[in-house]
């Protein structure tokens, strides 16, 4: 007896919807086992992890604060991955955006108002784009593997940010804390709900819808899909592969940069030695869990944002390691990628046939000459 994967004639649209849910369910099952093995009440822990944070307005606000950067970066990465370009350096582009966007409030502390906030966002986008252009150009000019270069540049950006926050940009009146000066209210994104939910939520949703339109309805989106799936067919259609690599990196880098400046000019309110708890990497999971569909990514950002908060919650309630969120995120990515196989394949259990008894010979019915 063995298990066979049978190729489906066409992608199953039912499985395209179901496979992320199956992955989520498998993650919960494995989480149950992990909690049980660690001597933690598994049901209680899962409740704290996945449900409790949805029961209070303050924690829902926290959730939204985390959904915004994950959606922004995830949408950008989905465009990248659909075009078969592998930007894994969004974390660095986020830092670059945060740094570039912080130039104005740090050097012109008195310049305030909507204009400067808009300029900060634009500079954040440009910073992320510029930083993402490096691996893109290395790829198109020299054929350097973009996975390696974009990943290594994450650490360069991280240390550069660290140096800025501890050194030249440190707040002189900040008691030696490694932070920049706090931005004034006129340099922060306007709050639209509660205490923390800023206009960036609207920006993220608009970006997701716009990206969906781009991918589904426009020629550019068509190019992204064609070049991602069949480069030779893309060339036959007259599309340029190198231009697409650059475009994909600029979009995903720009959106990561936007996420960076939205963090700094939002929940953080200042530039710190670190501006993200790994959003750039978590967004990779977000993109795949959302099936690389910008609208699906809004949903998957919610799930991953919950994994951050739930992890903190379990850590506090049951005293488990602070790495628990990473464990859940890792399992989720693992199962999402595995369940992707169900979209193109059916699973069948095959028993090896025993010797078949002889059957009566069936005559050839016609045409024997």
């Amino acid at each position, binding site marked *: 007896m063995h298990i066979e994967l049978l190729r489906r004639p066409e*992608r199953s649209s039912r499985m395209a919807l179901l496979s992320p849910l199956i992955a989520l369910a498998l993650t919960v099952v494995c989480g149950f086992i992990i909690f049980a093995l660690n001597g933690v009440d598994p049901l209680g822990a899962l409740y704290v992890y996945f449900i409790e944070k949805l029961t209070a307005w303050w924690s829902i606000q926290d959730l939204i604060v985390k959904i915004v950067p994950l959606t922004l970066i995830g949408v950008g990465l989905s465009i990248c991955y659909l075009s078969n370009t592998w930007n894994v350096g969004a974390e660095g582009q986020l830092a670059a955006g945060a740094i570039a966007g912080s130039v104005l409030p740090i050097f012109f502390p008195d310049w305030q108002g909507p204009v400067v906030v808009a300029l900060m966002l634009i500079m954040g986008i440009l910073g992320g784009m510029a930083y993402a252009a490096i691996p893109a150009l290395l790829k198109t000019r020299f054929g350097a593997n973009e996975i390696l270069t974009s990943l290594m540049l994450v650490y360069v950006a991280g240390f550069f940010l660290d140096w800025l926050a501890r050194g030249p940009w440190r707040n002189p009146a900040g008691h030696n804390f490694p932070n920049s000066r706090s931005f004034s209210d006129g340099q922060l994104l306007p709050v639209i709900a509660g205490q923390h939910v800023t206009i960036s939520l609207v920006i993220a949703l608009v970006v997701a819808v716009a990206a969906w339109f781009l991918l589904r309805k426009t020629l*550019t989106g*068509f190019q992204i899909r064609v070049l991602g799936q069949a480069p030779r*067919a893309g*060339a036959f259609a007259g599309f340029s592969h190198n231009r697409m690599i650059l475009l994909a990196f600029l979009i995903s880098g720009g959106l990561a940069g936007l996420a960076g400046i939205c963090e700094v000019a939002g929940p953080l309110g200042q530039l710190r030695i670190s501006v993200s708890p790994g959003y750039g990497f978590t967004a990779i999971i977000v993109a795949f869990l959302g099936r690389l569909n910008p609208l699906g990514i809004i949903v998957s950002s919610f799930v991953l944002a919950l994994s951050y908060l739930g992890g903190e919650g379990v850590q506090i309630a049951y005293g488990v390691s602070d790495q628990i969120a990473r464990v859940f995120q890792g399992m989720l990515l693992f199962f999402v990628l595995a369940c992707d196989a169900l979209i193109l394949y059916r699973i069948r259990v095959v028993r090896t*046939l025993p010797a078949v008894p002889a059957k009566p*010979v069936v005559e050839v019915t*016609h045409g024997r*000459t």
Partner: protein
Amino acid sequence: MSAVDTVSPPPRPSGRPQGAPTLEAVGITKDFATIRANDHINLGIRPGEIHALLGENGAGKSTLVKILYGALQPTSGEIRWKGKPVVITNPAAARRLGIGMVFQHFSLFDALTVAENISLALADRMNMAALRERITRVSSEYGLPLNPNSSVADLSVGERQRVEIVRCLLQEPELIIMDEPTSVLTPQEADDLFVTLKRLTDEQCSVLYISHRLEEVKQICHHATILRHGKVVAECDPQQETAGRLASLMVGAELRQLHAPEQVPSTAPVRLAIRNLSVPPAHPFATPLENISLDVRGGEIVAIAGVAGNGQDELFDALSGEVHARHADTIQIDGVQVGRKGVNARRRLKAAFVPEERIGHGAVPRLRLSENVVLTRHGTREGLVRSGVVNFPGACGIVGRVTQLFDVRKGTPDPEAGSLSGGNLQKFVVGREFDRQPGVLVVCQPTWGVDAGAATTIRQALIDLARSGSAVLMISQDLDEILEISDRVAVISKGQLSEAHDAHGITREGIGLLMGGSHGGGPASTTEATRAH
């Protein structure tokens, strides 16, 4: 139907050998999810017999062969080997029984030598020196000369096939299954293969021979089993039948005769001109193109014959604009110099292109047919793209027209391209370009893997398109097809193109000599070419 005349007449079979079948399939049935691919198939292959297995694409030939070779298990039915029921669980078991297979696509490592490649496939390890000696002996015995020390990368396609066959012979099989063995060979190489097959059958080895080339089946096979829709519809002695009758048995209907009106005068305007086109190789395995010149006039079909890998792909890429030429004047469409222009600029000049590879080049398998329409027609100003937004409903309309024009069979109105069978996808890819009424059409292997009925439709469409005033350049490896529909033939060999000859005065052998690279003398035109109809 004229008799087959060849320069060196290959061995001809004389009647079906007698004797109890080596292999017998009894009531073989194979169900896939919803399709019955094989329906109670009975087949007996006698010792020393070349048994043809004929059928259109999707008739169930590959399924049956996979079952006989152990790669698939039948849903019901029985295989008997020398009269005894056997269960062939996998290809290794088939080889142990004495069944060998030569695949259409070779499975050889370029970087290894002939002997190394063969040793990889042998069940038990063997001393290399002894193996080399055996390869030399077996290969010369069967008229398949091979140097065991040469590296596979340096071998021609025909020689690579020899490696596959010798590898098979070393297992001392009593039945060899051959899947389209001559599709990659020149006529002369094919004749050599037939001599080898004769030699094998003299030793009572049986051959199950799958081919689309009916003339060749008539030439060498003792017996034929014809499949249609998974059932055996006829068994016959192919030598007693005409190719046309065999084809209609496969299709289940009389084939339409091709109809080509009178040839166009040589004063017709040149619509596609290639002038001293040279293209350096893009990668180490590419063939450089050297000084290619050719005129294609409105109204005619010019064919480029040649064995695969002699620069056809490179020529197609240069003509389509996927690779730019060095000088603008080397390629001209209706007098416009397009050598440095991209594929869409050429399409806007009413040129259309159909590449050889359907999947991944001519079409994206995971995109819908409507999206695949947009693939080649987004830049032709037909209103499929307005200010950057794609009109997918409009593309669906084109899918409908193409479907009707070429009878593309599909389950849903707009399925993913990859879910179509190879033949239907080919009809779609060709039809997508015909629908534009192109002025210049460059088409590579227009009927590759397409069944006889559809091939006739496509060929007639090519003729009609040309006669309506378009220039058609057809790159093909199928000599029957070339002789059937083209007006002039040029042969590409090692990146060089011969002069174009009048297709009505050339023979298979003449083309074959040019394919081998003998550009010096003109083609021999002593015997009348064999036509399929």
